[in-house]
């Protein structure tokens, strides 16, 4: 059900969660469940938001919860967000933790080495 917004793959030794399209109140909950099911065992997680065209506060809540959980479990994680665009704007407006945001995948993977 959530395949249109979320897909999973490996990027190096990290679990890569790729989000795409519009993430809002309507789908954030299901997307969250799908992601949690896949990353509990992962040691490193990269969440790619570069093709997310819309992100609302429900999406922010989802990311906030995910990042919080991962950090609690000692899983290292990065959010990849383009320098501009809807997702970046929303996260900025919410004053999301800058330290987990990166602008491209390569750099994010490097930061988790």
């Amino acid at each position: 059900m959530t395949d249109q917004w979320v897909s999973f793959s490996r990027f190096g030794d990290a679990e890569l969660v790729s989000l795409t399209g519009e993430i809002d109140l309507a789908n954030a909950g299901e997307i969250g469940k799908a992601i949690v099911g896949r990353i509990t065992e992962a040691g490193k997680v990269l969440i790619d938001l570069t093709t997310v065209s819309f992100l609302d506060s429900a999406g922010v809540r989802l990311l906030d919860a995910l990042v919080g959980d991962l950090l609690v479990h000692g899983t290292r994680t990065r959010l990849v967000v383009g320098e501009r665009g809807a997702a970046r704007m929303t996260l900025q407006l919410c004053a999301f933790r800058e330290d987990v945001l990166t602008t491209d995948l390569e750099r994010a993977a490097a930061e988790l080495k």
Partner: protein
Amino acid sequence: MTQELRLPWDDDPDDLYEHAPCGYLTTLPDGTIVKVNQTFLVWTGYTRAELVGHRRFRDLLGSGGQIYHETHYAPLLRMQDEVHEMAFEVVCADNTTLPTLVNSVLARGPAKEPRAIRTTIFNATERRSYENELLHARRRAEDSERRVQVLQEIVANLAAAPTEAEVAEAVVRAPEPAFGAASSSIYLVDPERDLIIAVSSTDPTTGNWDDMPRSSPRAVARVAERGDLHVVGSVAEARKHFPDLVDNMLKSGRNTVVLLPLTTGGSDDRAGPETLGVLAFSFTGERKLGDNELRVVRLLGQQAGQALDRARLYDDARRREERTAFLGETTRTLDELHRLLPRARRLVDRVVPEIADWALLQLSIGNGIREESGGPVPDAALLESAEQRATMASVPIFPEPGDPLGCVVLPLTARGRVLGTLSMRMAPDRRGAAAERSFLIDLADRAGMALENARLYEQERETARTLQRSLLAADLPRGDARFAVETHYQAAGQDLEVGGDWFDAFMINKDRLAIAVGDVVGRGIDAATTMGQLRSAIRALAGDEVGPARLLEGLDRFVDRVETARMATVAYAEVDLVTGELVYSCAGHLPPLLQSPVGLPEFLLQARSAPLGSRAGDIRRTEQRLPLPAGSRLLLYTDGLIERRTRPIDKGFELLAREFGRRRDAPLPGLTTALADLLVGRDHADDVCLLCLSLGNEERIERSLGADRMQIAQLRSELRAWLVAHGVEAECRDAVLLACSEAVANAIEHGYRDDPFGMIDVVATVTAEAVEVRVTDRGTWRGAVTDVARGRGLQLIRESMDQVLFDRTDGTTVIMRRSRED
């Protein structure tokens, strides 16, 4: 004490006892006869042996006498020891009865115990016949008294009977109780038609019911002519004098007929008594009427005649009064309806059933008008021919007796022209035909005038409407992206003349727009013409450097020359489309209503002065300036919108402001119509005129969606496309999309938390400067948001937009505005 005279012969006491002129009885206290004299035995035919020791006195009485004996005789005797002159009928041996008078004395013993009753019995045969005579006389006296009573009652009834019909009814009921007649009938004289008409009878199977001419040889007509009572004592007499009565007398078994003329006047030496009717009553068996009775019969004739005379006068007066009232009421009710068709219909409805059972109104106006009511419908060919005759000759046609059409046909004329005809079938009227004709002619005159007025009204109304339509339809400025004008004109309710309300909008120069709404005093074609003149005057006076105040001064001068425009009211405003500055002035007109993009609507109450050309009011014209932000709406309107008989005017203002405010997000097209519908409805007594100016290139998108999170994406996609189409910069666009999504999510999660079927309205407008979005839900507001997640949503709205307002007057409206230059 005088010594008893010695008789010339020795009177044997026994013989005296036996043959005394009265009967003697001696009985025991229980009535058993123990001694009886010969006289009694002779009278009654009993033998002594039959009575003595065998019968009691009461056994000799009839059953009525026995009861009387029991209830009166015996108790009295016991109480008083004697009774006197008690009447008993003694039953004789041959069963005949002997009327007697009885005296008895109760003899008591030493211990006062009853021992014997001694009774004398007098033969009362002679005495009883005298009493019968008395009784008979008393009966006669009673009859006479009863007759007088019946007559008194009838006279009282006659006095109370207001109409001829009721008098006739009272009279016809008199002879049976008064004289013992078998039946009676009454005939009335109709002098106008020279007829005698049978109107009522206690036994309609008797007699001849045809109307008869007054000259008829029939008995009733003869007696009416002669004016004196006539008694037909027997069939033989009838055969001799009035053969027309014979058949009926034989058929209904009558032997005596009394024909009583009902007369009035009499004392008037000029004409002698006038006969108004004839009362005929008859008896089975030959009946002799005594002098007394005949006197009473004549008296009845006079009383009835006078009552009839009075009733006729009263009938005439009442009929005249009714007809006058009918005419007055007809004119009044026709005046209530101005238009031709309703008026024509009402005329027919007035006539049927009140004065006619069928009526047809045909008018040769326009395409022809035909209104019909009642029935049955008369013969079409006869009617048409009568209508033609009436129209051609312009004279009313009244039916003669026996006319096969039987209808009145009245030509309706006005200003020397026959408009058409009114045909009616009326109940045949026995009398007053002449008065009736003049009434009908009067009715035709009034109807003709009323219909002609309605025709003229239609004509003028049509002209006025055409004129008004052409004036109001004049081209209003369109196609300028900086503003839009929406107008609505609604004529007063269907039967009222056009009023003098108007609106106008025109460009003074390419950047200056003028708008006006005004109201001319009066109605109809004059008001419409004046309105056109004023409208032109405003267009002529307006100029770059003039402004509202000087323009109104110019109109004051204009009104001095065009008197019909005096006291007209005008609201006039100019808008600088570059700066957005509004300048306005009101001459006696209702204040314009302004809805700014944010906040509540407000009435513009400055720059007010008196109506145009007012002599008593303050006509120092001033003007007021204020900036109109893009997205403002300004409403000018006439008093028809506000004033309703059922609503105080301040409520009207309140309602207008509220409804205008509620619709600030509604599309401009249809807004003025919606306001008019809501405030005045369809049935209104005044014209309504509205003009709404919407300022700023108000491009807008409006969507309604259910309280369903799945629908947010769809909304967003439409909104995105719309923003893109308007060239809204990406950053602004994303911010608007985010804020809008959050506001909708907020409405779903909060406003409609308990209502999955709630609707959310989203309106976005875009101008060169900014994008504005309004998100409205009608759910419940729960005070400060404690939900952290929603708190983030609100934070996002605040962060992404420049201006955010919450309006919680009716549900929640979030008004968000973001500037495009960033």
